[in-house]
């Protein structure tokens, strides 16, 4: 027998979790669109964000949420400075530029993971938050844990602000122009270095702050990054390459899959289930579950 109360509770948890995954997925596919680089370091940004939360939260009265503005600024600056390096390895006369971009971000990921592992050791670290505890119970529906709700609200807000910038401002127009055609955008007088850095910085900032929230919901661990890299790729494959509305659906599917697998099967088998889903999606519908993306190649 399926317990209805438990079932709706899992749906709530999954949906709220999906909110933050969407943020990661959208930033990730934007970085792919603008820089034409598939970023292997995405999960490590989540991990470093979570560790910044764990380290800085005690400074701010054990309140992880106060760390968010710092994380946003630090990651934006770091991302803006990393972007020119990625741009450099994916352009110019070198063999297999795309492969090189991937390899570079792999090196970056190894560097970040190794540094955190060496400095903080392999153990879990808590990201404390005293404000975001407990939950609000809605009779007949279930409990909305405060930390997950705030996280989802942050995720959706971040997404909306990001979308507003992308579709309603001149800067956003420049970024979309670069994603469309980098050479032509440059010919139109767009400083592609600057706008690529803004795009990558914004993506890094969103991902890093998502990491703080993920650290508050679960915990911070030096090895957690790879899982979120896998999640980001999973969302993009599921959504269909380059199809943003698909990412939103895929984020929700991911959140639900994770919470259902954790409760009904086993928390350790989430990746196995995700791999099975990717396996089937690629065999049956390589253009994503909505069939509107480019073919996954």
């Amino acid at each position, binding site marked *: 027998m399926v317990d209805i109360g438990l079932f709706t509770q899992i749906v709530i948890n999954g949906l709220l979790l999906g909110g933050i995954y969407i943020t990661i997925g959208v930033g990730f596919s934007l970085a792919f669109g603008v820089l034409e680089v*598939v970023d*292997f370091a995405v999960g490590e940004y989540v991990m470093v964000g979570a560790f910044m939360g764990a380290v800085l939260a005690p400074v701010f009265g054990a309140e992880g949420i106060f760390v968010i503005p710092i994380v946003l600024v630090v990651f934006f600056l770091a991302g*803006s*400075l990393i972007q*020119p*390096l990625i*741009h*450099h*390895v994916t352009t*110019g006369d*070198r*063999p*297999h530029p*795309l*492969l*090189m971009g*991937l*390899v*570079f971000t*792999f*090196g*970056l*990921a*190894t*560097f*970040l*993971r*190794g*540094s955190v*592992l*060496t400095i903080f050791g392999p153990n879990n670290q808590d990201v404390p938050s005293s404000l975001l505890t407990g939950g609000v119970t809605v009779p007949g529906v279930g409990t909305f844990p405060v930390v997950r709700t705030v996280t989802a609200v942050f995720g959706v807000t971040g997404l909306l602000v990001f979308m507003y910038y992308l579709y309603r401002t001149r800067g956003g127009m420049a970024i979309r122009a670069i994603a469309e055609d980098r050479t032509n955008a440059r010919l139109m007088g767009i*400083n592609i*270095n*600057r706008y690529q*850095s803004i795009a990558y910085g914004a993506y890094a900032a969103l991902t890093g702050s998502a990491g703080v929230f993920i650290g508050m919901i679960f915990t911070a661990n030096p090895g957690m990054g*790879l899982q979120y*890299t*896998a999640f980001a*790729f*999973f969302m*993009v*494959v599921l959504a269909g390459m380059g199809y943003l509305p698909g990412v939103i659906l895929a984020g929700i599917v991911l959140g639900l899959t994770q919470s259902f697998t954790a409760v009904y099967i*086993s928390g*350790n*088998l989430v*990746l*196995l289930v*995700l*791999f*099975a889903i*990717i*396996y089937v999606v*690629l*065999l049956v519908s*390589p253009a994503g579950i909505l069939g509107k993306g480019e073919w*996954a*190649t």
Partner: protein
Amino acid sequence: MSGPVPSLDRLPGDPRYWYAGLAVLLVAWPLLFGAFWARIGLGALMWIGLAQSWNMIGGYAGYLDFGHGAYFGIGAFAAGIAMAQFGYPFLVGFGLAIVVSSIVSYLVAVPTLRLTGAYFAIATWAFAESIKQTALVTGITGGTFGLSLPRSPDTFVGVPVPFAISETFFYYAMLVLCLATMALTYYLFERHEFGYRVKALRDDQDAAESLGIDTTRVKRQVYVLSCVVAAVFGSVHAWYIVYIHPNDVLAPIITDRMVIMALLGGLGTLTGPVAGGLLVFLLERLSSVFLGSTTFYLPLIGVLIMVTVLFAPSGIIGILRGEVDRDDVRKNVKELGEKFDLL
């Protein structure tokens, strides 16, 4: 390009003497330096072989397999299950490792080789992770307890052998496997028509297809081959290390090491994995001995990869071959500086 082993050909004197000297050194190594150095040597040989196996799919075919370590683990567990659970001799486990890894890698190849680049990388990574999780919860692999393999003299072929199954024995086993892997790579990828097909599909899949190359078939062949090689090393490693656990032989760090070694050395070259394998293996050992940190080599290697990709994309071998000189680096730095024009 100058011959199969350019770094040796560039040394002064007749290269044949250098090859002969190297051969003598490799054979005499454990006899000259004892068990400790035999252990270091067999580790280096195993990692060179594994890096080469990754180089087949990652370097020659251009498919970044981030789940390659899974086959090392599959090989280890195939041998482990055959020996510890069913009491078969090692050779049966060895054969089982080859059979199981070829079947599994073929099944994985069919959907995942539809992907390229990062999507292939992450799909294979997720596969490796799911194999590890499965190994942790199933009974036959010993689950979270792991497996202990027997190592008495009759566990090699079923009847007692007249020599000890010792460090020296495993050194020679790894030496044979490593040389066989090198020879296979040299023959298949540098001399045989197969290698030209593989490189053609890496450089331009559509063009290769238009010339009548069945790229799907070739890709699957390379993938299965490279996975079986990794599994073979895994099976010997399991017997050597005696106790295997999913968190050890299926750890993602195994894949990471293979990738890093092949990359640093030079992708798609015969000698790249040798140079990279030696460098990374020694860096790791030295950092744990001299710095007292078993993880410090990771950020070091991360930086090394980034610097290599930025300034010397053809790896150490590219530098040794003289493909990358000071002017290239200077030009690279200048171009990179221009990209920091952000305001």
